[in-house]
């Protein structure tokens, strides 16, 4: 019980810390949304008069309240769901913007992370089990190299190779807008899955490395534990020892690192989405940065942070089940 209370307290502190950063950062950024809007309007060939500036200024409105007041207002709004109006998507509510983008990211990044995790662990188990053998000697160095390749670079090469040259996968986008409309139809889902393949593959390739090496090393050191020797002496089948005893124990650190890894992947998705024109929150975030869209930026950072915190929290709770020992600590 104490364990969970502590955890909850920690996540609350982390949450408040994050939202405070979140509050401060846009306010320290130079520039303002009005000017970015004018630039956009000009680039559209719209007619721009000297009055345009004031017109847009009065359209967006602004707050001159003291900082402290703004802060409390901000915190109140976080909980009431009133996250403000996006400038980039004016007059759409930030919550609404995020709602359109979030499912894409969650689907792509979430699924890929889980798949990546599973593959990582399986490869790591296999390499650790056969450490020093050929499989290990191929997989470990390869994973090491892939781990160090810049993600977007790999993605661009993948696009060039698989989409442009071989034509196996679509170039960009989240689904085929010619054949499907967003909704719960087989057409849409299959199309979205097809379009997610290449970005997913790119994420997989660059995220596999670290996990494989980590798991492999854990596996090797677990194999030296006494209980593995005991399991062998018991005459258990190698399969049973490999998964039931060695992997079961070796996976614990990877599991606790899973939440943090997810955080990294959410960040990494930013680049994926940029490279693949994928309609997720990463791209939206870049847009918000460039457009001085404070409200949207805050909203996105908040949602990313909350997601990561929640996932970490869940992983922490689950960890108590995976590793019974943690339940009594503290």
């Amino acid at each position: 019980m104490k364990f969970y209370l502590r955890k909850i307290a920690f996540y609350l502190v982390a949450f408040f810390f994050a939202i405070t950063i979140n509050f401060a950062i846009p306010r320290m950024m130079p520039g303002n949304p009005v000017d970015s809007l004018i630039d956009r309007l000009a680039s559209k060939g719209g007619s721009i008069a000297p009055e345009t500036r004031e017109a847009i200024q009065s359209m967006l409105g602004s707050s001159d309240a003291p900082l402290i007041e703004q802060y409390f207002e901000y915190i109140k709004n976080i909980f009431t769901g009133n996250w403000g109006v996006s400038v980039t998507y004016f007059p759409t509510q930030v919550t609404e913007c995020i709602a359109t983008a979030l499912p894409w990211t969650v689907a792509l990044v979430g699924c890929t992370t889980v798949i990546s995790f599973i593959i990582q662990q399986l490869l790591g188990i296999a390499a650790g089990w056969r450490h020093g053998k050929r499989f290990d000697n191929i997989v470990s160095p390869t994973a090491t190299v892939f781990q160090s390749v810049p993600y977007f670079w790999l993605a661009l090469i993948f696009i060039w190779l698989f989409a442009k040259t071989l034509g196996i996968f679509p170039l960009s986008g989240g689904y085929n807008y010619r054949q499907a409309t967003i909704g719960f139809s087989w057409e849409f889902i299959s199309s979205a899955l097809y379009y997610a393949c290449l970005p997913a593959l790119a994420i997989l390739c660059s995220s596999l490395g670290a996990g494989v090496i980590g798991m492999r090393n854990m596996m090797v050191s677990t194999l030296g534990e006494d209980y593995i020797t005991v399991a062998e002496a018991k005459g258990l089948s190698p399969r049973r020892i490999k998964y039931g005893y060695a992997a079961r124990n070796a996976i614990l650190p990877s599991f606790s690192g899973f939440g943090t890894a997810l955080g990294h992947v959410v960040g990494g998705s930013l680049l994926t989405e940029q490279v693949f024109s994928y309609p997720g929150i990463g791209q939206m975030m870049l847009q918000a940065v460039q457009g001085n869209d404070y409200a949207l930026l805050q909203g996105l950072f908040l949602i990313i942070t909350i997601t990561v915190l929640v996932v970490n929290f869940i992983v922490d709770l689950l960890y108590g089940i995976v590793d019974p020992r943690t339940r009594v600590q503290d």
Partner: protein
Amino acid sequence: MANFDPNDVLLTVRDVDVVYDTAKPVHAVQHASFDLRRGEMMGLAGESGCGKSTLAYSITQLLKAPGKVQSGEVIFHDKSGEDIDIRALEGKALRDFRWDKCSMVFQGAMNSLSPVTKIGKQLGDVYKTHCPGMKKAERMERAAHLLEIVHVDPNRLSAYPFELSGGMRQRVMIAMALALEPQLIIMDEPTTALDVVVQREIIQQIAELQRDRGFSVIFITHDLPMLLEITDTITVMKDGVIVEHDTSANIFHHAQHPYTQKLLSSFPSLTGDRGKFLRDGHGLDVTEA
């Protein structure tokens, strides 16, 4: 102490040579030979690092790289009359042999249980592997019975190892070793790092079980005083070589090898004369190498 037929040999170990093939190769066991009779409890004593565990591992074929049994033979004379050459066993045959005929309680039994699996499951695993047809309920029943034998509350089947005290874990390991009623159990320092009181309890229990069931035991420890009390025969090792092998009483009263004699004289007597021991500086001048 059990009575046994001096000619009913269970295990023959002949000329076993083990080398750790590292940068500086270690010849850990040299020309080890002995016979173990059915129902005999044999003690294996010797200072730390003399090769006791290595010998035990090579008997059960559990030696891992860089350790390597270079030569020698280990023959197991099964109840059925069949002679099994353990070193020739491989794969399924080896796995079937293990635990069914010969089980082992490991040095540091504290770490012999997987920390994240309930002990009931770990006990059940033995039955699952060796008695494939057995139902889950029966497995649990048997496991519970095993715990009863070693005086652990059967309710503890659903406990994780970390929830048990060191002594209890040790008993669980002993219970596990008994699971298939093997003919040979090797116990590698099963009680070190335990409280003397607990130690004594466990050892008495082992001795009792052995008397009841008639299996043979190889009992490894560096605690010679204790071995003297519980074993039938004692083998003393030094630097990988078996320097003496005799009945316990003979060893105590008429130790032949100087090393054995030194070992025996090293422990001050608990109840004997205080003598000129230690305090006044006229005791044994033991210099260590």
